[in-house]
């Protein structure tokens, strides 16, 4: 069946077409038509993805490839607009189109009252299209197009409610900080082109092994530069500061872009270029270390937030940290698996948060929520499922299986270490505390705000579907001592090499699983103690000055914003403002002044007073005489 693969280009083209139509005609057509174009284009893309996926699974080709046109060709540099679909891209496009489609449906209700309904869907479609290009590109330049395209959409959607200057600030912050990473990545592309004469991903992957030995300097530098791009987009240390502020956008945006898809682009990039990273063990170590540190920093920051969406934002940073941790030890498929599961439950949590925010008249402060368990039962149960998955609640939640795999490979994997494992385990503990802190504050206790808008089907259905996926998604990949299902890693095995496990370590696996379960449950219990059964414990923390200082430090995201503000932003703005009138121009103005001065001096001598002229002639004559005598 070749026909199906010929439709490959339609997957990104449809959302682009939707966006284009909405930009051109969005203001002139009815809301119903906007909805149809906006959600329909992504829906059809999802359907094509599904058909293609079924065909892919049944016929098992290595990959699908389609060249749409040759982008340009200069001196042997000829990137194409061409798509390459293999198992890794398949996982990503599946998540992008399906989760994207659900979020589009959800948005029809969430954004129903908004005056800029069509602009919203235009941006969302543009985003889905760009993201699909990013993960389907067969060369790094096209990937870069998608990469920057999603950055643009992120900017447009964070600043969607543009009348609030703070939103615009957050939007620009996101764009500029990610662009810092992109710049590193661009330099990486220059180096890759210099080394290989092409940016075609498959060619680079096959030739890199022949060109470089493990640890070759070029490979290391390139891997670090690509990592720069990845940390920018994925909100990892040290470029993580934009992501919490990105929550200024409408909640469906946070769910789709800043949780489920775009922020995992860095994970995709590293997995896609894994050959380069394997040649650079130092860079791999850096990936793991960045992941470990980020997941802890963001986890502790999440503990102290009061804004529901900010908790989730820090939690996203922290969970992507887990993905980096997995990638860093070479557990490629574990990282991608956690990406998929995370996309389900994090989108679910954000959408639930959106439903709450909508019901409470755009109130985001958790301290003003409470008691929503009874007033919003569907949201409560689905949120609970998402929270269980995030906190890796043992056995029943998908998050348990994906996170457990990562933790296990930190110890059992060849490149793992006790330190990375310890960081991951501590992170898991913190995760379950902040997750259930959120659950208990929001849904238990007494109601503090009146519930306005009750969600209808357009909100409930996506929640329920994502809830089911967050529960059952984990069962396609089970540990070998517990069911031993390896559907997911098998699916990815042609693309991503399996991690080599230290022999003879398997017998301890159950102990680690029990430990992970205990940590998760322990975290939930602590949250229960502090926020439900014994509030006096919390009060005692609030009385301690040291604890509150730490609290403020974590609340500010470990002071990174302030650091960058003092080190970079202020000096730059100062420099720009101080030189607003351009000092170089001063030189030319000065030159003009000097000329003018001479002019004034000489014109003063033209006074018309005869005796001055006579005096001048006499003095001149004397001078000439003197000179001629002495010379």
């Amino acid at each position, binding site marked *: 069946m070749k026909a199906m693969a010929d439709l490959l280009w339609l997957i990104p083209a449809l959302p682009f077409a939707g966006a284009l139509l909405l930009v051109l005609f969005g203001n002139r057509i009815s809301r119903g038509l906007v909805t149809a174009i906006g959600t329909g284009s992504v829906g059809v893309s999802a359907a094509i993805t599904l058909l293609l996926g079924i065909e892919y699974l049944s016929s098992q080709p290595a990959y699908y490839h389609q060249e749409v046109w040759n982008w340009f060709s*200069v001196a042997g540099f000829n990137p194409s*607009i061409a798509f390459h679909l293999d198992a890794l891209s398949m996982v990503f496009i599946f998540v992008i189109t399906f989760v994207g489609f659900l979020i589009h449906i959800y948005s029809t209700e969430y954004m129903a009252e908004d005056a800029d309904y069509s602009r919203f869907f235009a941006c969302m479609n543009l985003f889905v299209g760009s993201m699909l290009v990013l993960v389907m590109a067969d060369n790094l*330049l096209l990937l870069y197009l998608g990469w920057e*395209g999603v950055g643009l959409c992120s900017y447009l959607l964070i600043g969607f409610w543009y*009348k609030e200057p703070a939103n*615009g600030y957050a939007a620009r912050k996101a764009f500029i900080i990610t662009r810092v990473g992109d*710049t590193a990545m661009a330099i990486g*592309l*220059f180096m890759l082109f210099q080394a290989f004469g092409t940016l075609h991903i498959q060619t680079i992957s096959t030739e890199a092994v022949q060109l470089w030995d493990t640890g070759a300097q070029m490979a290391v530098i390139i891997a670090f530069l690509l990592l720069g791009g990845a940390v920018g987009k994925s909100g990892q240390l040290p470029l993580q500061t934009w992501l919490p502020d990105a929550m200024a956008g409408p909640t469906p945006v946070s769910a789709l872009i800043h949780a489920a898809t775009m922020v995992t682009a860095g994970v995709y990039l590293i997995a896609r270029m894994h050959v380069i990273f394997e040649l650079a063990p130092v860079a791999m170590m850096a990936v793991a270390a960045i992941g470990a540190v980020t997941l802890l920093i963001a986890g502790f920051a999440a503990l102290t937030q009061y804004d529901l969406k900010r908790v989730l934002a820090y939690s996203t940073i922290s969970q992507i940290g887990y993905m980096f941790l997995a990638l860093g030890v070479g557990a490629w498929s574990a990282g991608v698996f956690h990406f998929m599961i995370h996309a389900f439950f994090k989108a679910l949590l954000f959408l639930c948060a959106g439903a709450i925010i909508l019901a409470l008249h755009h109130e985001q402060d958790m301290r003003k929520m409470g008691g929503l368990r009874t007033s919003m039962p569907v949201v409560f149960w689905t949120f609970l499922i998402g929270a269980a998955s995030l906190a890796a609640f043992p056995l029943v939640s998908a998050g348990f299986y994906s996170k457990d795999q990562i933790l296990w490979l930190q110890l059992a994997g060849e490149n793992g270490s006790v330190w990375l494992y310890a960081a991951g385990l501590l992170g898991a503990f913190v995760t379950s505390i902040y997750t259930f802190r959120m659950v208990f504050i929001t849904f238990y206790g007494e109601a503090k705000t009146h519930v306005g808008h009750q969600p209808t089907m357009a909100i409930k259905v996506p929640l329920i579907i994502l809830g089911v996926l967050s529960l059952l998604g984990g069962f396609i990949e089970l540990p070998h001592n517990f069911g031993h299902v390896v559907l997911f890693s098998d699916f990815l095995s042609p693309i991503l090499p399996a991690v080599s496990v230290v022999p003879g370590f398997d017998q301890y696996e159950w102990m680690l699983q029990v430990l992970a379960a205990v940590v998760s449950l322990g975290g939930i219990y602590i949250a229960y103690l502090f926020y439900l059964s014994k509030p006096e414990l919390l009060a005692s923390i609030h009385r301690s000055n040291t604890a509150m200082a730490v609290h403020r430090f974590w609340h500010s995201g470990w002071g990174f914003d302030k650091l960058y503000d003092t080190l970079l932003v202020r000096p730059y703005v100062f*420099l720009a403002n101080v030189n607003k009138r351009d000092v170089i121009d001063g030189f030319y103005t000065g030159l003009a002044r000097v000329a003018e001065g001479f002019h004034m001096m000489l014109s003063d001598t033209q006074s018309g007073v005869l005796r001055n002229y006579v005096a001048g002639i006499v003095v001149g004559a004397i001078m000439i005489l003197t000179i001629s005598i002495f010379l």
Partner: protein
Amino acid sequence: MILVWLIVILMAGGLLAWLAQRWHRASPRWIALGSVLATLGTTVYLWLAMPSATLGASPWLLQYDLPWIPQWGVSFSLALDGLSLLMLLLTFFLGLVAILISWKEIKNKVGFFHFNLLWVLAGITGVFLTMDLFLFYFFWEVMLIPMYFMIGIWGHENRNYAAYKFFIFTQASGLLMLLAILGLYFIHGSQTGTYTFNYFALLNTALAPEAALLLMFGFLAAFLVKLPVVPFHSWLPDAHSEAPTAGSVILAGLLLKTGAYGLLRFVLPLFPTAAVEFAPWAMLLGVIGIIYGAILAFSQTDLKRLVAYTSVSHMGFVILGVFAFNELALQGVVMQMITHGLSTGALFILAGFLYERLHTRDIRLMGGFWSKAPKMGVVALVFVMASLGLPGLGNFIAEFLTLVGSWQANNVLTIFATIGLVMATAYSLRIMQKVFYEPAAVEQPELPDLTSREMLIAAPMIAGILWLGLYPQPVLDLAKPSVQEQLQSFVPSVENKTIVGRQTAFTTTTTDTVYFQITKGITYERK
């Protein structure tokens, strides 16, 4: 002969427009529109009719040669290759745009305005076509004087200062170029006995290294001031911000490109050794320009001044790429010339639209225009994104090719140039934020959205910048033979260097002389 007609139509159209004002007030507009359409049509015809096979054989598509002052060796010599064809397309397209935006904006001395406009275009056309250095200098001056009038008569408040400054900078640097041209003329004459200003003849001049360096600086003076390169840029913000919209569009879109064109056409082939010697410094100047222009753009509050400084920053890429001496970078430079012409031209046009409505260029007095004028907002968004180098739009191709190319030549400077992209993001987003997003601090009068005449100007520019971003191949193909020609002296060549007679295959009229091209004997191998 076609090439002469291009210039004649513009000059005659200009005179006619000036005279026609006596008969009917609106007639100059239509005459100008007609002349530019005629030239644009002719170049588009040339472009489409040009069989691509010709491009491979010889870079020259059309030649015209007429002795002018034979005793001095001056001839009226014009020639068209892919590079000049591209530049002409840009010239006439932006010329057309310039006429359309002035339709309502220019109300006094309409005839004289269009005379100046058409003569500037004629001068630019001449600069892009001529193959005689004397004639080149002549056209270089023809561009200058009408531009001086355009700024000085129809400009904003501080127009006299800006016009003088523009004139003095360009004139002073142009005189240095004249000295260098004469120097080259006499050196070549004393060597060979034939005194000529012909470009192709002068290409074969053997120069002592010191003489080459000095003469190159003469040419560089004119081109670097025009481009402009920091620290010779300071005429540009004043001229751009004080000029009427059409003037700003022509300044940013075309006049700056004559500097870039001069570097490609004259500096590289005439002084290959000296250029290599100077290259690291030139690239350094480029990077300084990229960063310095970006920082200054960030703090400006006058919208046109802001856009003017972004030009300084973007033109830094041109000199960076030119002195990287490889095909990737040079193709990037050619792309940059065209895409910058479109994107910056469009930003000046937007500033003009805003000025017509609000009578201010101060962005502190603007704000929240997205809700009032959504069409204008979308147009602005596209060109702001183009100016920060978003992939999918033409400027990205230009900057990426330039940087990939310059990376091969100099890693450290390329890194700094790439950092310039982050700064470009900062100043570009500031435009969107201050003008379209953030509510204004002061009360705003009504702001009507773009009219259909204005959309007629903006839409083709958007289409153009998208086309250049998604399928730039036609442009690259057209520029390729010229770019390779300019690079001949820089890459080790295995080609036979004996004299090869090549006939230009495209001869529309019999008056076109058949030209025998002599490939250069100088080869220079870069280390």
